[in-house]
């Protein structure tokens, strides 16, 4: 039990840390996600230096200003390249914390006219790191909403099917199979097509996420049905029935709590799946629209062959998703182990 808890610790800590960063994206991001800079389209990740052209070592890292960046390294004879030191806790573009408080504090930044693009910039000169952090809010929210929706319907359908059995069970499970057989991507195309063209980005987004969550209920429902089938046969359920307990009471107090561990694991597994679904949808232009960033929006510029072949840093958001998903799956795995080790 203890070792399982310890095993659970690192994915949970990593997830919590990432969520913190994403929650306070405005603070960790050096720039606003929508601010364009036409002078620096597709700028590569900014190099951070400790040693200047003259060979002097600086304790405070610095970047080179515009105009001479890039050339400066090679043509060190040029005297005009000016270092701009990296500063911690600077004031910059205003942003909202929790949609209420306005702040201008940023974790790091450089003085104008220098720019710092740790992950490069996109075609409009927008900082990719800032867009990635703000985009994480939307993509993770999408994953979370969809996962909670499908698990919520799953627990309802699976709980009822497993508990009552008989024709209700048959009906719900055959219905679930129908949903499993749905080609969901094309269904979403149809849903988007059925919507009016001009509705707000947020409405489209929430609607598509909801549809995604709603059609994904069958898998969690099957899982929960299985747990409920064995849970309802336990003697303490029978004993409570002997005291005159109603079905609602039995489900709430004795049967469904036995499914919580499975549910938690299921949500942890579903979030990355739905995040990927958001990425796919937005990549195809169905999800979040400009100027709102999301992981799908960040990657959608890769549709252009010139971007794909010339600007390698545009792949960075996709690379960053890998460790994140690994953490999610590790957390799901650890939760499953923990749930196995709880004796019932």
């Amino acid at each position, binding site marked *: 039990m203890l070792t399982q808890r310890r095993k659970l610790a690192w994915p949970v800590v990593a997830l919590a840390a990432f969520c913190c960063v994403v929650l306070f994206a405005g603070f960790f991001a050096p720039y606003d996600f929508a601010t364009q800079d036409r002078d620096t389209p597709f700028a590569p990740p900014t190099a951070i230096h400790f040693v200047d052209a003259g060979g002097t070592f600086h304790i405070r890292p610095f970047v080179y200003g515009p105009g001479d960046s890039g050339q400066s390294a090679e043509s060190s004879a040029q005297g005009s390249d000016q270092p701009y030191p990296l500063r911690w806790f600077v004031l910059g573009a205003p942003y909202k914390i929790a949609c209420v408080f306005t702040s201008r504090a940023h974790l790091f930044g450089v003085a104008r006219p220098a720019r710092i693009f740790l992950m490069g910039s996109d075609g409009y000169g927008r900082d990719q790191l800032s867009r990635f952090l703000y985009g994480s809010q939307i993509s993770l929210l999408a994953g979370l909403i969809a996962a909670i929706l499908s698990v919520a319907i799953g627990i309802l359908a699976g709980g009822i099917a497993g508990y009552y059995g008989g024709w209700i069970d048959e009906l719900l499970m055959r219905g679930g199979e129908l949903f499993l057989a749905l080609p969901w991507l094309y269904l979403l195309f149809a849903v988007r097509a059925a919507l009016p063209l001009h509705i707000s980005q947020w409405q489209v987004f929430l609607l598509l996420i909801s549809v995604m969550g709603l059609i994904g209920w069958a898998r969690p429902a099957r899982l929960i049905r299985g747990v409920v089938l064995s849970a309802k046969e336990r003697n303490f359920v029978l004993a409570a029935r002997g005291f*005159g307990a109603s079905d609602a009471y039995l489900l709430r107090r004795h049967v469904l709590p036995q499914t919580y561990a499975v549910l938690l694991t299921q949500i942890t597994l579903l979030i990355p799946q739905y995040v990927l679904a958001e990425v796919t949808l937005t990549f195809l232009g169905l999800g979040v629209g400009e100027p709102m960033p999301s992981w799908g929006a960040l990657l959608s510029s890769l549709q252009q062959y010139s971007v794909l072949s010339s600007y390698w840093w545009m792949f960075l958001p996709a690379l960053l998703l890998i460790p994140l998903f690994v953490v999610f799956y590790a957390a799901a795995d650890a939760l499953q182990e923990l749930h196995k080790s709880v004796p019932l």
Partner: protein
Amino acid sequence: MNPGPRSNGSQLEPLLRVSGLGKQYLQRRPFSHTKIAVDAFQDVSLTIFPGKTLAVVGESGAGKSSLARCIALLEPATNGTVELAGTNLAALSGKELFSMRREVQLIFQDPSSALNPRLTACEIIAEPLLIQGEGTKSQRRARALQLMEQVGLDPAWERKRPLEFSGGQRQRVAIARALALGPHLLILDEALANLDAANQTLILKLLAELQAAHSLSFLHISHDLRLVSEFADEVAVMRLGRIVEWKSTRNLFASPEHSYTRELLASVRSVQSILLERSA
């Protein structure tokens, strides 16, 4: 059908009268839609008088547990009637049945599966009161603590969960829970089978005390004739879903009629003689 012993307490109204009770399970054949009926037990008639103990003894598969569940109102019987304190249970409305459940409680064989591992001892013992809508939360807790004391559990353990108790203590929690609603009939479905010998004796002693204090009747279901003989007023021997012999305990030991009863008694005696030989 064996009429059973009528000698003791003949003037009293019986607490429980079971007549012609039967239970059939429908079992589906594999790879087929036809169902076959399997009799768990059939044509069982029993009476229990207030404050008395009736033991039902038989091998596993004899239908004892199904009988216990039918009498405890956990499963409907296929035919026959169960009368509790003169009321035919089949004729009751849902609401009347709900309050009739206070009268009869079942104690399971395996206390660890009969107690929800997520709940505390206090919550478990107070649960019947909660379900029957009795008292406020603090009243229910006070009653639970009182019951814990009655069954020999330290009330300071109220926040412990079933897994933190030993097997004997868990069975005490289950007994406390069964007593919460003040039943008149307790059904012990192999309630001692999972305990070691020392705990069996302790729980038997506790049950005897409770019987005297609350004038409880027990229906004690067991495969262990030796164990119930120390405890029961009457013994009914069950075989293949039928009661083959039903007598007062002394009569059964003195003059067993059915061949199966003799076999059971012989096995008890052989165990006793082996033990005697060893100690000699």
